[in-house]
């Protein structure tokens, strides 16, 4: 019967055909040992695929990894998290300070203010040594003539209608004094007080200098008034960064990198069509000037020292992404009119074939399979040791481990319990390094129960954090005492963690009038010490912390009820509204010392990050000074003060910073080339900041396992 035969033969033949392919496939052994290319190939396993390979657009970890290999920023962070020149060889920071001449004002001696008089008095004071602190910093002073300027402000339409209205306001900018300062000085105008008087900076009659178009309500005028005051402050600091660019740096297509690319990258971010998620990082920039092909001047609107960190972002090639290039791409792809109108950098094919100046150049990307990079032989710092870089997308943790153990993947994000296993295996090297995150218990400082710092301290002293680290984190964590990541210079290591001292905690609370009642709970004025501790669902460690804290507090007579909420509900109903007693949460911090969003009292409103409602005027003052300070040493001293201040207030019980873990084949080492042509190998080590990839350019796989 032919049908029967067909039904049996077809699968048999298919199976045979499928199985015979076994003989054509190289074994792992052949791939790794028999293939010298494998030793210069680095394969990283990743759970998820990259999304968009463009330094100004990406917002996910996989894309960031690739983008960092393909693109260079002007700066990056060195081993100690200090800024270091990359595409910029070096940079200088100076300041232009502007002071509006206010004819309504009088000098302290009663003489009316004019531009000429102001200038003359300051010059005289400088000569007489009255302004000794400012004198050495001032390079020049000029009096700028008045000028007329039309500036466009966008006004939000009345409630109910979305959209904005553009309003042109004509400003008559009065005479101004322009000071060129050697370095940024946030107290510069304060130093001028002996001459201009202490009320000079307070008020300026803007209304006399503005002309509105017709048809504005008085409400809108008041609003515009505030906007103009913001745009044209009486005293304005304009920090300036001069970047000196590296000469002879080439993009992967051979085109030379210059100042135009820097300016273009900035403009691309600010172009609303491109929908860049980095606009807020670059918003403080007033404008960018190209002084010559290798010198760029970046002028900032106001004092905001963390803004320079934005320049660690990769620089785009102008010649491949400017308007003409975009036009060419649209023509080539034959896009429709509608598509052309909305076409932005997000739509460009560049994001799947990126070209940068980085150590590796992009070769190919098979979606959800792998991304292949190859070392850039003309890299300005010399070519990398690895010739190929692959990111393999393996979505399953177990198959990742299978491939890793078989040697077909060099690195994958091993879980802490897996790392514990690898630690015993002589074939692998493992790393536990500090990151930028920490976990804490945050108390709602607005609640009368938690208003007293001593009460918060007592609660913290009742919890045995070391036990949490040992048993919950398998030891992969470190104690912390304050708001900064432990591996940054802002963290003050001299601050000692709270001792674990339940008896002391009880004493503190008793001093505050809390006494044990018959049921074993602390009681004051007929109320027992009771509150709710909540966190989000889906994080087992946080869930366990709830129980541990509950139990620890029960021992000192504090009644704590715990509850878990789904993440969206947790944020929407509790954290964002401030309707909670205490939460267990974590932060992932940046590398700059700016704590404005998390700790400044102005940021304690709904949806804002200071949801515990921390409010200390001294801390507010420090926070503002830190973000306006450009001298790193001063900044560090201020940050240490702030750290101690927050520690003393204990608005959070700072628990621990988790360690991140990584496992590598021991054959991967750092390679150094000696002058005599030999090679020296060193063990890979994490930098102070906890980064094991810092010397990735030197990594290579050896044919043997070295001993160190």
């Amino acid at each position, binding site marked *: 019967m032919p049908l029967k035969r067909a039904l049996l033969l077809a699968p048999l033949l298919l199976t045979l055909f499928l199985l015979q*392919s076994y003989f*054509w496939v190289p074994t792992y052994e052949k791939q790794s040992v028999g293939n010298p290319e494998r030793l210069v190939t680095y394969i990283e396993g990743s759970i998820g695929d990259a999304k968009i390979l463009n330094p100004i657009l990406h917002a996910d970890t996989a894309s960031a990894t690739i983008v960092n290999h393909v693109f260079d920023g002007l700066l990056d962070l060195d081993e100690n998290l200090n800024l270091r020149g990359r595409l910029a060889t070096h940079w200088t920071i100076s300041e232009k300070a502007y002071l509006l001449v206010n004819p309504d004002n009088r000098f302290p001696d009663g003489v009316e203010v004019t531009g000429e008089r102001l200038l003359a008095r300051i010059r005289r004071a400088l000569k007489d040594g009255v302004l000794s602190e400012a004198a050495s910093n001032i390079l020049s002073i000029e009096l700028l003539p008045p000028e007329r300027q039309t500036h466009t402000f966008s006004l939000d339409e009345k409630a109910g209608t979305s959209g904005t209205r553009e309003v042109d306001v004509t400003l008559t900018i009065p005479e101004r004094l322009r000071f060129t300062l050697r370095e940024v000085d946030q107290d510069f105008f304060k130093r001028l007080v002996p001459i201009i008087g202490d009320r000079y900076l307070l008020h300026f009659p803007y209304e006399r200098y503005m002309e509105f178009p017709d048809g504005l309500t008085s409400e809108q005028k008041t609003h515009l008034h505030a906007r103009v005051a913001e745009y044209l402050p009486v005293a304005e600091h304009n920090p300036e960064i001069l970047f000196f660019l590296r000469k002879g740096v080439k993009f992967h297509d051979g085109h030379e990198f210059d100042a135009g690319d820097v300016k273009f990258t900035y403009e691309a971010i600010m172009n609303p069509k491109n*929908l860049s998620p980095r606009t807020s990082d670059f918003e403080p920039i007033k404008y960018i000037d190209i002084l010559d092909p290798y010198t760029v001047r970046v002028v900032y609107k106001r004092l905001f020292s963390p803004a320079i960190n934005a320049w660690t972002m990769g620089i785009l090639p102008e010649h491949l992404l400017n308007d003409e290039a975009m036009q060419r791409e649209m023509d080539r792809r034959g896009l429709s009119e509608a598509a052309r109108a909305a076409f932005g950098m997000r739509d460009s094919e560049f994001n799947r074939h990126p070209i940068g100046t980085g150590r590796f150049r992009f070769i190919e990307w098979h979606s959800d399979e792998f991304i292949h990079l190859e070392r850039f032989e003309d890299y300005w710092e010399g070519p990398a040791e690895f010739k190929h870089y692959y990111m393999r997308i393996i979505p399953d943790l177990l198959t990742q481990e299978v491939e890793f153990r078989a040697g077909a993947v060099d690195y994958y994000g091993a879980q802490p319990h897996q790392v514990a296993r690898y630690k015993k295996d002589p074939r692998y090297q493992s790393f536990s390094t500090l990151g930028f995150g920490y976990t804490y218990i945050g108390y709602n400082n607005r609640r009368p129960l938690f208003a007293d710092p001593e009460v918060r301290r007592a609660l913290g002293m009742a919890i045995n954090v070391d036990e949490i680290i040992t048993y919950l984190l398998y030891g992969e964590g470190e104690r912390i005492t304050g708001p900064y990541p432990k591996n940054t210079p802002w963290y003050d290591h001299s601050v000692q963690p709270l001792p674990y001292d339940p008896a002391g905690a009880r004493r503190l609370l008793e001093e505050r009038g809390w006494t044990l009642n018959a049921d074993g709970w602390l009681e004051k004025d007929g109320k027992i010490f009771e509150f709710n501790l909540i966190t989000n669902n889906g994080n087992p460690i946080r869930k366990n912390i709830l129980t541990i804290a509950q139990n620890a507090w029960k021992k000192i007579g504090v009644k704590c009820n715990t509850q878990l909420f789904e993440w969206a509900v947790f944020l929407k109903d509790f954290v964002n509204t401030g309707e909670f007693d205490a939460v267990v949460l974590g932060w992932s911090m940046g590398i700059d010392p700016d704590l404005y969003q998390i700790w400044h009292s102005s940021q304690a409103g709904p949806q804002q990050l200071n949801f515990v409602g921390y409010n200390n005027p001294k801390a507010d003052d420090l926070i503002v000074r830190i973000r306006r300070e450009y001298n790193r040493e001063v900044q560090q001293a201020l940050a240490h003060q702030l750290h101690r201040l927050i520690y003393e207030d204990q608005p959070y019980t700072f628990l621990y910073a988790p360690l991140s873990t990584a496992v590598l084949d021991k054959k991967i080492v750092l390679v150094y080339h000696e002058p005599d042509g030999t090679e020296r190998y060193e063990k890979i080590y994490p930098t102070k900041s906890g980064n094991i990839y810092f010397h990735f350019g030197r990594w290579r796989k050896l044919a043997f396992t070295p001993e160190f």
Partner: protein
Amino acid sequence: MWAFIGRNLVLRIALLFVVSVLIHTIIHIAPGEPSQVDPSNPRMKPEDIAKIRAAFHLDDPLYLQYAYWLTDLLTGELKSFKDNQPVLGKIWRRFLNSLPLFVCTTLLVWTLAFPVGIHAAVTRGSMFDRTSTFLAYAMISFPGFVLAYILILEIVQFFEIPVIGLRTFGMESASSLFKFMDRIWHLVLPAFVGALGGIAVLSRYVRSQMLEVVNQDYIRTARAKGLEEDTVIYRHALRNALLPFITMFGLLLPGLVGGSVIFETIFAWPGLGRLGFEAILSRDFPVILTLNVFGAALTLVGTFVSDVLYAVADPRIRLE
């Protein structure tokens, strides 16, 4: 017949519209935000998120969002929220990846299940019947992903040979014959693991259908005519047992866009199932919607084809 086809077509298009509206609503009601505008992503600032939301029309009323999706889909300008790639191109490339797996699995299932099921039915109660029943139920109850893991671990350990992915890593320089065979090898495990469950289920259906048929009078008549046993079974009995399988065959079509999420994830196979799965994880609405609507369309086409095939296979059925 033609009137039936015409009427059916109109009905199904209307149904497709309703389904697409439903899917659209469900996706948007479900919690979570597209990853590009995820408020809990520390790399994103609220201002930037608001801007991107506006560009994706995420704050517009649902019916408008539906209209945007539909017009974009029809003009072929639909773009993924995740990476701004054209959705249709993405789906097409993944479809090509999933196709060989689909073809192999389907071929294995729809060929092997029949002889196994038929033999079990004909020799009911025999050793073969009991073994195959046992194995089939074992395969049905044993979770496929566990089997996949076990096979991967064993094969990697025993043969020291790569099994996951579309191809072996680092074979760029090999000759094209080697590359081709390598691709074939990588089909083996996922195809077999995927087929096992299918064979188990389908052979059970075949067996029970055949059991109903083999005791009919016309089978006895056929045997009495002196026909060969194979002819009796495979021509006279099988034809009459085939009807339910036409429906099942029609329902195969949506599998073309469904792929297999679990096996594709375990085997790191960049197919449609994973595309859909990752799209759901990152709330990539355009991709989820389009895939679902294609799935719905293929289901409708599949059932339509099987309706028509009924009439072809069984002269007693008339389409009116």
